[in-house]
């Protein structure tokens, strides 16, 4: 099977490319580095042991001018989602009251469908939610104005998250090694920032935190995490650029165990879930992160709230590869509503753990379904 495919593809490509190459003399540009772990940039993982740069704010790099969250350790009270989110982002904009007062008819359903789809809930989950409501209206279970219907929809969405806990699991005390949380996701969703914020939160609660700079691919990802490590007074374990991420995480866990750390937060390079070799690499990272003395208790998929239906595919693929245990939904303070998490919860059963609603460390809060739904509706 595989053989047939390989041969066919090679054959087709030979013909296609040769056919056109005769016409257009190709210029070749392969000087760019390939992203095989450690191939062109093979360098031993240089551990930077000891307290990683407790650098004062702003000194870590010139780019950190005008930094967010100066003195991030003073985490204020948990901000209410409602206060952080713009009212204009509500599903129904200004006309919620109008809908509420009307009788239930097909227009109401159309409006609800439109609102849910515009919130990126996706066709399938939207249809499932509304079909259920329709049949309940028909059976007389829901009666009265559209207000009752809206209430029922709200309850249904909240019900999707019933039984979930936003608490992040830790290893039982006395288990002889640090708890390990692994952060994964596609490029640009905010993994490194999330880790920085989580580190600040956990450190503020008195935990000893080690950060593993497992993103050895993106330029300056290590420096970015270093700045956050400085803010959170966490230790940072880094490898050379292009080093094997597993080795960095392995070293971080070893280091954490030796220093009696409570928690190791492992960063990974952003990767599109379609890149087979990179997902393989991530599988390996997970296997290594699981090794004693570390106790891997959470694999968190970081998801950007602006993501559309591809979020579901991401969640599916990352779960298949590394057993995602929960979602961190970032950048919810923009105009995007992050409705794809409903589809993810509905179809994959993955709970939402944390929600990012701003740039400071205090703005990463536990997910509360009531609040989330209230922010959608009000």
């Amino acid at each position, binding site marked *: 099977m595989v053989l047939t495919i390989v041969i066919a593809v090679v*054959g087709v490509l030979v013909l296609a490319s040769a056919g056109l190459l005769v016409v257009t003399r190709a210029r070749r540009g392969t000087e760019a580095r390939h992203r095989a772990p450690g191939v062109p940039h093979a360098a031993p993982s240089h551990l930077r042991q000891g307290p990683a740069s407790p650098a004062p704010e702003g000194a870590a790099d*010139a*780019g950190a001018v*005008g930094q967010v969250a100066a003195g991030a350790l003073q985490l204020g009270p948990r901000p209410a989602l409602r206060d952080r989110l713009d009212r204009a982002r509500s599903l129904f904009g200004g006309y919620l009251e109008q809908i509420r007062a009307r009788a239930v008819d097909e227009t109401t359903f159309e409006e609800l469908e439109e609102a849910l789809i515009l919130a990126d809930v996706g066709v399938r989950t939207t249809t499932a939610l509304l079909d259920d409501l329709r049949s309940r209206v028909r059976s007389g279970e829901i009666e009265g104005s559209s207000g009752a219907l809206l209430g029922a929809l709200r309850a249904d969405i909240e019900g999707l998250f019933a039984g979930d806990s936003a608490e992040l699991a830790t290893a039982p005390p006395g288990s002889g090694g640090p708890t390990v949380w692994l952060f994964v996701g596609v490029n640009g969703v*905010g993994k490194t920032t999330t880790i920085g914020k989580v580190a600040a939160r956990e450190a503020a609660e008195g935990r000893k935190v080690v950060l593993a700079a497992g993103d050895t691919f993106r330029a300056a990802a290590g420096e970015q995490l270093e700045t956050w490590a400085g803010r959170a007074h966490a230790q940072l374990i880094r490898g050379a650029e292009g080093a094997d991420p597993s080795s960095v995480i392995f070293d971080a866990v070893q280091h954490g165990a030796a220093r009696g750390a409570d928690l190791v937060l492992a960063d990974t390079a952003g990767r599109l879930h379609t890149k087979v070799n990179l997902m393989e690499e991530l599988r390996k990272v997970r296997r290594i992160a699981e090794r004693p003395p570390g106790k891997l208790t959470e694999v968190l998929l970081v998801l950007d709230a602006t993501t559309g239906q591809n979020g579901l595919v991401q969640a599916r693929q990352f779960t298949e590869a590394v057993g995602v245990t929960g979602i961190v939904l970032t*950048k919810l303070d923009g105009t995007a509503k992050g409705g794809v998490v409903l589809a993810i919860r509905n179809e994959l059963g993955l709970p939402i753990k944390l929600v990012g609603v701003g740039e400071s460390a205090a703005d990463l809060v536990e997910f509360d379904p009531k609040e989330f739904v209230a922010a959608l509706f009000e």
Partner: protein
Amino acid sequence: MVFPGSVGGPTNLREPMFDTLTDRFEGILTRLRSRGRLGDAEVNEVLREIRVALLEADVNLAVVRDLVERIRARCSGAELSKSLTPAQQVIKVVSEELTTTLGGEPFKLSYASKPPTVVLLAGLQGSGKTTASAKLARWFKQQGRHPYLAAADLRRPAAVEQLRILGKEVGVPVFSEPTDPVEVSRKALAEAERVGRDVLIVDTAGRLSIDLALMAEVRSISSALRPDYTFLVIDAMTGQDAVSTAKAFNDALELDGVILTKIDGDARGGAALSVKQVVGKPIAFVSTGERVADFDTFYPERLASRILGMGDVLSLIEKAEREYDAGVAEKAAERLQKGQFTFEDFLEQLQQVKRMGPLQGMLGMLPGVPKEVRDAKIEDKDIGRIEAIIRSMTMAERRNPDLLNGSRRLRIANGSGTSTTDVNNLTKQFREMQKMMRTLGPIAGLGRAKARKTARNRKVKGGRVTPSPRGAR
């Protein structure tokens, strides 16, 4: 595999990705074949499918409505074509409408009469501005220009450092200083003029469109620079919100175009369609991969077929064109057509194909590849096994597979750590390929010429948004 703390609830991970639109249409439209016209009932049914497909591709709801109406106008009552199945015919209409919407005025870049040409990049956090800046710089360099990069993202920790590293990689100098973004931009411009760089690319911090303070900041950067081009950098995975983001940035900055990033994933990129339709600005560039070379100007018809889930064979060919060694491929094709293709050639080609990246990715770009094949796991190991078998052959055997008798096969199997069945399979498949390719040979080259012609035709008719009557083509 059981993971500790694994989730409860229904997990249907293996659920198939959605079928291609063509497959779905075939189902609806097969019963049509006997009749002469597309009836309203069938068209409605098909349009519902199209609507769902477009929404699942993250095309904005308002844009979907508009498109569906245009497609309806062209489909209902249309005469059935003799050469196409009804499904193909509808697909053609849909694809044409999408291409028209995406295309329109193609993006044309002209350089400022008084250099430097200033390019400003803006967008949400994590959309890929910094990477796109470096890629764009490399692109300008390839056009024979002398770009200069300004790192005006002073918010995200290490963003400047990231741009410096990328700048070094593409061989373009980077300007920055720890002052403020407006100051950095202004000085970068002065510096570019002083040292005689003719293109200035300014990377800015990611910002939310509703963050008034930051939107004001980017506006003041813009008024300080008076950029010749302002691009919105937008992630191909963006959902319905793409429209409000694009609108807000367009209102604040007067965009000239869009750079679409991360289209190397499997997101269908419907956001691009929404943005194009809503702000009316062309998609100028697409970022197609993680390496700095993975950056290209935009081809509407490719994205149209991608939104429809129809593969992206043109991109594949381009990739081959870039990575393949021209001489070697030319020779190989010649030999293939003459039936002289040997294992030696095959091995050489395999090396080239491997350079293009994982085979799995390429498979996804080929249209009409059955789902089972697309989902088949092809690992480097499998290719390694094929290589091992060929490398265990003597030169004479590689050139003349007829030599391979039982004892030779056994020797090869032992030498490569495989079984004789593996060796037999390979030789059998190889022969079949030879046979198949000999008949296909000359067509491949022609196909390309034809594709170019079509692309040109499309450009000519680009810009039309109103439903075009069938006779127009």
